């Protein structure tokens, strides 16, 4: 597997205007990350008209010996206040994101799409398959708490395409945070999903004195990825920053988090 950093990890300092996206990328490189994940809705100062900026960040990332492992964005159903987005508008958002992912030289797109009916996701992804194939981009659907670990399995089987794969977020196997509907699932559910995985979000909210994430079984999760021969990226996605009111250094959290990935992921 390859190890990297989602720039989401630097959210506190980006939100407060203390660092720039370029500084965050340079810091990830200094830690030894092989790649980064960018979120359009957070990391492009020209979003959603970000093509030129995307090329700039792609070149910066490459110049530092890294690659862009995943491009993330949101498909907005409530972009307008007067009505919800139509299927054609979702298609347009998705196809724009696919093209931008390709411009970034990035193989994986995570377009977050909210729906209580998984069939709506299946319909949208199926309609986008020709565009995904044309641009050589894999749609990674993110599995995140509080969803059950097997929530998207049926959709993945129904679409049944190499261009539609899974991005598990470790929050689904965390014992902290949200209530415990998904806690009893155990490591077997993670192992069962291995054939579908294209990219992983190493979620963390805190670290103890030993550098462990006390609520998330990193040793076991990364161990399974090694056993199953996972060849994609696992990226740090530190999320404690949203609730942490006291000033702290995003760079320090990124360093601790990446050290944890290296401990069990190498």
């Amino acid at each position, binding site marked *: 597997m390859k190890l990297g950093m989602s720039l989401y990890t630097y*959210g506190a300092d*980006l*939100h*407060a*205007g203390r660092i720039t996206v370029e500084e965050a990328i340079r810091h990830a490189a200094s830690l030894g990350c092989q790649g980064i994940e960018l*979120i359009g*809705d*957070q990391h*492009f*100062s020209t*979003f*959603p008209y970000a093509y030129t900026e995307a090329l700039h960040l792609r070149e910066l990332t490459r110049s530092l010996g890294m690659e862009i492992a995943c491009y993330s964005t*949101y*498909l*907005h*159903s*409530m*972009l*307008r*206040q007067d009505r919800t987005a139509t299927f054609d508008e979702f298609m347009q958002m998705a196809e724009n994101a696919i093209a931008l992912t390709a411009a970034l030289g990035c193989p994986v797109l995570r377009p*977050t799409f*909210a729906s209580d009916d998984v069939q709506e996701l299946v319909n949208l992804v199926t309609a986008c398959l020709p565009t995904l194939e044309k641009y050589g981009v894999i749609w990674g659907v993110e599995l995140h708490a*509080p969803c059950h670990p097997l929530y998207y399995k049926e959709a993945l089987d129904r679409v049944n395409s190499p261009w539609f794969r899974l991005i598990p977020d470790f929050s689904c196997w965390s014992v902290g945070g*949200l*209530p415990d509907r998904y806690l009893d699932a155990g490591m077997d559910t993670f192992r069962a999903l291995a054939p579908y995985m294209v990219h992983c979000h190493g979620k963390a909210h805190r670290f103890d004195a030993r550098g462990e994430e006390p609520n998330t079984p990193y040793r076991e999760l990364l161990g399974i990825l090694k056993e199953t021969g996972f060849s994609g990226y696992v990226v740090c996605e530190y999320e404690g920053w*949203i*609730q942490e*009111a006291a000033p702290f250094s995003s760079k320090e959290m990124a360093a601790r988090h990446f050290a944890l990935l290296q401990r069990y992921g190498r």
Partner: protein
Amino acid sequence: MQNEKTGILYVLSQLGRDLLAETSLHFKSWEDGTTGYAFAVREPFYTSIPLSSLSEIAVTVNDRQVPENHVWLALREQRIPASVCRNLWELYWHIGEKAEIFITDPTLLQGGLKKKNKVALQMTVRPAYDYGLPEKKVDYAAEAEMEVVL
């Protein structure tokens, strides 16, 4: 499920801590002759947001509610009436980006301000992505004593 949604709302509301980017009310005169007072605010949500997410921007100065037609958001030096923001889904306010709340209330401009003023801001964000929030919104509020700077 309700607890989960309430939990998300709590998490999303935490970043309101960065909402006020300064605590001075500075006099501002625009090229078109419009004058008023402005203070800097920072985009409060955890991602960039389209302006259409701004359902409401409400300002009180010394406990007086500024009429909505005298409240503006100045983003990248574009002055936009608060009530119009909710229609502008093509224009984004970026994470960490400063904008200004600009007020043109004649009552305040004509001697209604003191040297130091209690300014309260409430900003209601209706995220463009559906997080399943109760009432589909997050309220951000901040209050500060602001000194007038001419």
